[in-house]
């Protein structure tokens, strides 16, 4: 007789809502073909809002574990749930007017909900098994979403590349986890931590395990030298999906990394910290330099996103209360800028009926002043200019570096930021190129309003978060306490 573990349904309500939403949608979608888009969007919005609502309700509850200790429901989980739900909602608004949504809107939204559920589960995972299952749940759905535009070769290529390289990353991760099981007899983060802090960190098995886990997660985050998939996948995926990926995937993968390194493997710090430092430095510099030579906007921002991931690593390396708070706030700050920037690219693609390049956006800023000015704000946010939320994110992460006596990492980040200005300015200069009038001005199409709404919402989030970030910083600090390092 198998003993069924106790399930705290309320604690997992945020994830369950999303999954239920996804299945309901898949069922319904097969009955009412043709009106998928409206239905999918409405159900998706309801599920995401409900999931965020449940998470907010759970905010003041004490942290618990459920499902026989496989899931850890704490404030970090809730913050990630709300953030992912926010990313999902904005993505739905961006995607609404997209052609493919008209035909397969139901499936699109269902996949999106499954991804969100997977990401929430990652934040809640308390063992390598849960982590792997959650990772695969979101990854597999995301592969499909990347390849969603079946008529476009680029989209199929993007999905396929992501599938192959993502799977390699997952395999390596599982392989690493197996070593920990061999060495400590458990997959649970807490048990591994206890065993390692007793046994010491000298065991070759454990060191190998640490390296493999690190590589596996580095694939997911997309830091150098495991970033090869990022540019191709970002470029080929539907733009709304790309925006979602660069914001939400980064949140999920970084939280996974934080859970594993800071909760399960703090004893192995001497192994992973030096490696991460090298990865962070290389990624920040080379990621931004690679972006300099791109002309395709999505590729350019893909490399920018690689560079930003390198910057986020600083916070994990430093750990501690300041580092973990910095990490969570930085991830949250990055989301509206990334989704906003890709939403503007989406808008341009619809105006221009083609891909967005530095050439195609020449002079476009004068046709779409609101979107273009928003883009300027998002790009300056990436560079960390004051009054944008990106500045506060940069401020807290650099602050943790300075506080942790790693000011030199801060100097590297500063140099990388200056390099990043090179390509960010190229986009701004091209948009406001007086010499070339783009002249392509699409008539109002369905979904344009929602897309504009998404851009303006992102703009508002970026500016409000940049001017009055106090509340967000408090939440990030509370959530950071869920990690052992944040206490």
């Amino acid at each position, binding site marked *: 007789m198998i003993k069924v573990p106790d399930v705290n349904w309320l604690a997992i309500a945020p994830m369950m809502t999303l999954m239920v939403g996804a299945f309901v949608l898949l069922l319904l979608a097969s009955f009412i073909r043709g009106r998928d888009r409206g239905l999918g969007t409405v159900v998706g919005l309801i599920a995401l809002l409900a999931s965020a609502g449940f998470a907010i309700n759970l905010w003041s509850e004490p942290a618990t574990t459920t499902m026989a200790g496989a899931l850890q429901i704490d404030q970090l989980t809730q913050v990630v749930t709300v953030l992912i739900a926010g990313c999902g909602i904005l993505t739905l608004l961006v995607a609404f007017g997209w052609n493919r949504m008209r035909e397969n809107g139901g499936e699109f939204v269902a996949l999106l909900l499954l991804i969100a559920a997977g990401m929430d589960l990652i934040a809640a995972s308390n063992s390598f098994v849960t982590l792997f299952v959650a990772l695969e749940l979101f990854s597999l759905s995301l592969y499909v979403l990347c390849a969603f535009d079946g008529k476009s070769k680029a989209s199929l290529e993007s999905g396929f590349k992501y599938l192959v390289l993502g799977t390699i990353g997952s395999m390596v991760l599982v392989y690493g986890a197996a070593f920990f099981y061999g060495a400590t007899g458990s997959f649970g983060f807490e048990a591994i931590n206890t065993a390692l802090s007793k046994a010491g960190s000298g065991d070759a098995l454990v060191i190998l395990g640490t390296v493999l886990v690190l590589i596996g997660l580095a694939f997911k985050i997309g830091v150098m030298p495991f970033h090869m998939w990022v540019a191709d996948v970002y470029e080929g995926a539907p733009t709304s999906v790309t925006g979602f990926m660069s914001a939400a995937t980064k949140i999920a993968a970084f939280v996974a990394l934080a859970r594993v390194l800071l909760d399960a493997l703090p004893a192995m710090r001497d192994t992973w910290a030096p490696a991460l430092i090298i990865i962070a430095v290389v990624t920040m510099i080379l990621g931004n330099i690679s972006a300099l030579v791109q002309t395709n906007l999505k590729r350019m921002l893909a490399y920018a996103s690689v560079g930003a991931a390198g910057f986020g690593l600083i916070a994990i390396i430093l750990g501690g209360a300041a580092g973990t708070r910095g990490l969570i706030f930085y991830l949250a700050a990055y989301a509206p800028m990334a989704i906003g920037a890709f939403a503007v690219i989406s808008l341009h693609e619809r105006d221009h009926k083609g891909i967005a390049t530095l050439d195609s956006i020449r002079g476009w800023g004068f046709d779409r002043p609101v979107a273009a000015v928003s883009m300027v704000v998002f790009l300056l946010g990436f560079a960390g200019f004051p009054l944008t939320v990106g500045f506060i994110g940069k401020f807290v992460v650099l602050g943790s570096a300075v506080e942790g006596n790693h000011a030199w990492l801060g100097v590297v980040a500063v140099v990388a930021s200056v390099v990043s200005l090179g390509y960010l300015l190229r986009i701004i200069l091209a948009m406001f190129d007086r010499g070339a009038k783009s002249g392509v001005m699409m008539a109002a199409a369905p979904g344009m309003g929602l897309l504009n709404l998404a851009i303006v919402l992102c703009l508002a989030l970026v500016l409000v978060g940049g001017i009055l970030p*106090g509340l967000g910083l408090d939440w990030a600090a509370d959530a950071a306490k869920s990690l052992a390092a944040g206490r």
Partner: protein
Amino acid sequence: MITISILIAVPAIAAVVLLVVPFARQAAGYLALLVSLAVLGGVIGFIYRFEPSAGYQFADNVSWIEPLGVRWHVAVNGVSLAMIAVTALITTCALGFALWAKRDRSHASAALILMTEAFLFLVFAARDLFAFYVGFEGMLIPLLVLLVVWGGAGRKFATLQVIAYTAFGALLMLLGILYLGLTAPNGPNFDMAAAIGRGGDWVFFAFAIAFAIKSPLFPLHGWVLPAYREASPEVAAVLSGVASKAGAFAFLAVLVPLFPAQAATYAWVFIALGTIGFLWGSLLAFRQRDGRGVVAYSSIAQMSFIVLGIFLLSDRGATGATFQMVNHALVSAALFLVVGWLETQVGSGSFSQLGGLARRRPVLATVSIILGMAALAVPGSSVFASEFLIMLGAFEYHWWLGVIVSLGVVLAAMYMLRWISAILHDRESGLAGTLNPLDLKQGALMAILPLVLVLIGLSIVPAQLTDRVDASAQALMSAAAEEAGR
């Protein structure tokens, strides 16, 4: 109690309104001008209520970002108030000039100029390092867009240069600010008063490089020429008139009081660089073939001279530098507007296309000669008074420094006279010969005249300014002067 925050808020709010509300073209320009006049009126009110011996005044100090220990702490002393006043004046004139020049998308251009003003006020009034940084780097945002959208043909390169240089400096400073703020005893505290004397050498240089780039101080002046050349005249006036003063002001009001020991130890570096920059800039100004080049290089020279004055770490140097900042702001802004006006009238700023413009253009000739005389520091002019103070300080420092600096002042006379003769007195040549004889009048004159009048006013009663800034400048300098044994 009305505080200095209101001065920052009014142009900022007006800028947002102008950006969001679709005003008609003329209306937007006039509205912005009205706002800037109101701000100028407010500044005059503050000047009258200002108590020269009472230190920082009109303060606001409330919590801003609680978890980071950041406070909204703004206040002004004599030096900052002088800079705020000159900023308000130059902004008004710049907006007036933009109105006259009929810029396209005038609501956006006016909004961005007002936004720059707000950021500059924040730089001059901030007493919290975070707020200071927001102003210091934030002002790049409107200036960047102003350059990109309304700049000249070479604006791409110019923008890249400006942003790369200044952002690099600012980010270095950010690391320094983080260090000072986060290592404060009793938790994070970014207040300037709490940071005094706590920074080490690297923090000092992180700040110093940022300010040296902004000023600009030789050899970090590479971004200046393209920016001044490509910006539209009113933006160039704001850039060279007051945005660059943010750097020099920060040397005097942030770097020296916060790092008295390092300022005393490394003063010679800045004196040396200031001297080189002064001579180098003056020589290059002499070789330029167009008006903007002359004004740009003379700006580099003058800013180096001001930094030199600050790092003499003496009361005379500090007062002289403040006075000179105000004077140079007025002169360079007015010169850029005149040069820009000439470019729009003639179609070129090159000396080969100009010449003999004094004929049939009495107003232009008068304004140019007054400005030229002021710039070359004719005895009796306000610039003479301020340069004299700095030179006196230099002689006190060492007699040979005084001699070298005097040489630079002579060079200033040479390039200004060359400029005057090139545009006013040579034979009517090039495009200028074929022009219809339009003189400086109405709109453009109204934009330039206030600057000239204030300059004349300061020449007559310089004590109106020096009496108000003297005590503040000395207070900023006292700790470092003590360290330096002066």
